[in-house]
């Protein structure tokens, strides 16, 4: 038990990888075994995360469950892990969504073994970003997660997968180039990558000192934008978002679930964990610029979504729209750091990350369910399907309402908090973003209407194309999502309590 307590984070982090390596030696033909093995292997980290959650002391400030192992001695970098109230929510989200995504992938029949292995590798990559307290390790996991995702899209995606996967890879790597250089610069300047040390030293540089032949302020500004662009590509913020609709649309269903559910959060998490603490001053100065990009994402994301005829693209653009609120909250928190407004906005942003993870994964799954049956995502080819698949229809409406922000479901809580926190400090931006919120309603209803209502497309009613109802396995995937969505919507305190303490301590 003692070992478990002291090594909890590294166990959660590396168990998926170990499981993937064991899978290497399982026979490729035994697809059933492989599927259940992968599911079981991804459930263990989830159970351990529940242990982590229950042992987490939300009243203590600072990082808990810290572990540190020397990794790259020459560069003074260690595998330093730890969680606070913000990262533990993200860890929970990741370990919660991965088993669901694997369960959703039981319908994959092509090369099950590498598929499941890539998913487990991906889980380690994502968890590593959320847990690391060392800048170099952060970067290592940040980049390494790209590889499994690239191959999941490239190998198991739909028609335009080559284009989409390469675009995803090059956009993200290109975005991270600035981050890489800035990380190197920090390493050269301070001789350490430990975040806790870096926060302190980087911020205590006197304003008049000269580094690299430039005033400190200039260097910080450049480094701020290098960080910000890397994370903005991942979030994604307008105008860096164009890789997202392609990648989401072409990815296999479970890939989209993870991509929208967790991968986008890595970008937002980067803002919270690195950008605001390392550049408080710059975050204040450039909050307006960040807010412009965020509002751009909210408004154009909503318009873009409304204009789609492809169901999956519609949901993909809705992610741009929803993630915009996260960054709006972050920008407001940066501007108003230290005030109650900042705390409300940041709480909202973190909760919105969690909520969007749930609802986006649910939405992509629902799109996947119908796509697997009809092999089309074109909204014009659906219509009036509600009587054919009443259970599916009901769940789809539930998910859509969560996405729309219906009070009583989770999205409402977090979006309200973001707007409440941002309005006093970023009035005009928040007001414009309401335009996006309006169109959120429009595109969500458009999606529901085109699929479920209107005149029934008889093609799906009879014969070999007859639409079948959602299966038990698929219900098992969505029910946990629905339960959490409802739980946060009705009683958000259980999760906000954990987030709030960390937010108040940091910002």
């Amino acid at each position, binding site marked *: 038990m003692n070992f478990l307590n002291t090594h909890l984070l590294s166990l959660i982090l590396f168990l998926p990888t170990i499981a993937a390596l064991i899978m290497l030696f399982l026979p490729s033909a035994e697809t059933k075994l492989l599927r259940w093995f992968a599911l079981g292997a991804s459930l263990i980290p989830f159970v351990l995360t529940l242990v982590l959650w229950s042992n987490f002391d939300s009243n203590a400030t600072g990082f808990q469950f810290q572990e540190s192992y020397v990794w790259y001695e020459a560069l003074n970098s260690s595998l330093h892990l730890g969680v606070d109230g913000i990262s533990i929510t993200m860890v929970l989200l990741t370990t919660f969504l991965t088993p669901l995504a694997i369960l959703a992938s039981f319908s994959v029949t092509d090369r099950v073994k590498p598929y499941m292995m890539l998913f487990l590798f991906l889980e380690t990559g994502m968890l590593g970003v959320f847990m690391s307290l060392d800048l170099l390790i952060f970067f290592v996991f940040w*980049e390494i997660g790209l*590889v499994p995702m690239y191959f999941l899209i490239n190998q198991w995606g739909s028609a335009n997968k080559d284009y989409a996967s*390469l675009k995803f890879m*090059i956009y993200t790597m290109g975005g991270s180039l600035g981050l890489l250089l800035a990380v190197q610069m920090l390493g050269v300047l301070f001789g350490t990558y430990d975040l806790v040390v870096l926060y302190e030293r980087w911020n205590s540089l006197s304003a008049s000192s000269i580094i690299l032949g430039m005033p400190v302020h200039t260097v910080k500004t450049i480094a701020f934008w290098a960080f910000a662009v890397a994370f903005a590509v991942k979030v994604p913020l307008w105008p860096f978002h164009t890789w997202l609709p392609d990648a989401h649309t072409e990815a296999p269903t479970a890939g989209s679930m993870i991509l929208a559910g967790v991968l986008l959060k890595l970008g937002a998490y980067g803002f919270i964990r690195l950008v605001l603490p390392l550049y408080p001053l710059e975050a204040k100065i450039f909050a307006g610029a960040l807010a412009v990009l965020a509002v751009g994402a909210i408004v154009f994301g909503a318009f873009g979504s409304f204009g789609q005829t492809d169901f999956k693209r519609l949901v993909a653009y809705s992610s741009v729209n929803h993630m915009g609120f996260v960054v709006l909250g972050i920008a407001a928190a940066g501007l108003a750091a230290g005030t109650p407004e900042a705390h409300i906005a940041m709480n909202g942003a973190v909760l919105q990350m969690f909520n969007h993870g749930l609802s986006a994964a649910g939405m992509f799954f629902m799109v996947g369910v119908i796509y697997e049956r009809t092999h089309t995502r074109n909204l014009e080819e659906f219509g009036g399907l509600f009587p054919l698949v009443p259970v599916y229809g009901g769940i789809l409406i539930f998910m859509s309402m969560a996405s729309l922000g219906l009070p009583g479901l989770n999205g409402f809580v977090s979006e309200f908090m973001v707007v409440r926190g941002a309005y006093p400090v970023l009035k005009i931006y928040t007001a414009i973003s309401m335009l996006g919120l309006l169109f959120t309603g429009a595109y969500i209803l458009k999606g529901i209407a085109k699929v479920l209502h209107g005149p029934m497309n008889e093609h799906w009613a009879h014969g070999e194309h007859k639409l079948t109802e959602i299966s038990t396995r698929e219900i098992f995937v969505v029910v946990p999502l629905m339960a959490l969505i409802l739980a946060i919507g009705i009683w958000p305190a259980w999760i906000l309590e954990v987030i709030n303490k960390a937010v108040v301590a940091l910002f």
Partner: protein
Amino acid sequence: MNFPILSIITFLPFVAAVIMLVMPANRKTEVRGVALATAAIDLLLAGWMYAQYLLGDLTGYQFIETYNWLPALGITLKFGVDGMSAPLVLLTGIVMFTGVLISWGDDDKHVMSGIQDRPREFFAFLFLLAGGVFGVFVSLDLFMLFFFYEIAVFPMYLLIAIWGWVKTREYAAMKLTLYLFIGSVVALVGALAMYWTQYQNTGVLSFDMIQMESAGFSAAFQYAWFLPVFFGFAVLGGIWPFHNWSPDGHVAAPTAVSMFHAGVLMKLGAFAALRVGVMLLPEGAKQWSWLVMSFAGVAVVYGAYIAFVQTDMKYMIGFSSVSHMGLVVLGVSTLNHNGLVGAGVQMFSHGIMTALFFAITGMIYDRAHTRMIPELGGIAKVMPFATIGFIIGGLVSMGMPGFSGFIAEFPIFMGVWEEQWLLAVVASISIIITAAYIMINIRKVFFSPMPEKLEGHIGDVTVLDKVAIATLSFLMIVIGVFPAVMVPMVEKGVENILRLLGGS
């Protein structure tokens, strides 16, 4: 007297070459058996030596052996390794072993992979080459270093001209040999100048490099001779603008020779440039580092860009080697701790990676009879194991964290940050270009639909090929995940270099 491990490692290939040459030519399997056994023994010895150095926490020059060779001129056969050269000795052992494995091939009429034409002579020449390479890495005597250097270059000519790609082999062999001889002659002149100056300064006639480190060369002497010595050797390292022989040589060479060429021979150039140029003429190195650094910076970006536009897989890898070796020289030119550590690791990492690339490209070429990227496709279905190997190599090449390339490139860039941050920013563009061409190549060659022409003609690789691929891939991951298996060792070599550079 300790166990003379270094001379055994060095001379075993020569002995094996002679044994093979006296064996009957038609006993192909036996010849291959001798080759494989020799390579395996050499690899084990090199691995043992490496483990001794690493685990024994040794520093400085170790396993030193000295024999008189020509005392009248002060030439001794002096061997020894430090933290810089020990990984390279191991690298040579690995490339030699895997090179023999993949040259074994399959003599089925329909496949004809590996070396089926006169394997006896092929392996004999290959081992002469390997012995020469070992010799350079372990020599602590400048004369002996040259001696082995020339021995290593010469068999390349025959190996390429006889077993190479029919279309360009004569041209490429000639070009390669002329380039390298000119380079080494220039460096030799510099070495002789050092020898005589040392005699004038101290009255000692000696080629011993450890002694030469304290020969008291004047600053003016060092400024004048650094460039010829450094660039004379660096030609073999493929430094821009003298890189142009290298891709041609890679393309024309048979698979195992390409592996040696890119994997080890180019390291020879970089290592000798570091050992003789930087370590014996430190003042000169400081004076000219800006020039070396700019040339290397050009090589990094330009090499990546030229690799991007290639349609022949071997040319693509050849130019990517120019780019990656540019990173090695870039690391050396920073003359600081991080840059040199990165350069040391990059030499090993790139050696393994590029050997893997050439091995797999050779396997594809043997079966598809083409290396043109547009004419290939669907290889993943028929050669799944090789595909995974190539992907791992590709990830190393683009410097993906978790693999050895990152462990090497990251400190190099940090070193450059310390000297000239603008260059770090410019050179980083190469990472994106590399990612693009590697990914596009993997997608096209391995995962696009197979062209009809190739359908049914391509089979999987042999078991020996798989062993070679697995060995090389494994090493890249181990170093990537546990840098402690190599970095502390290289750091010790770097300490020595920094001491010579005056503790900066």
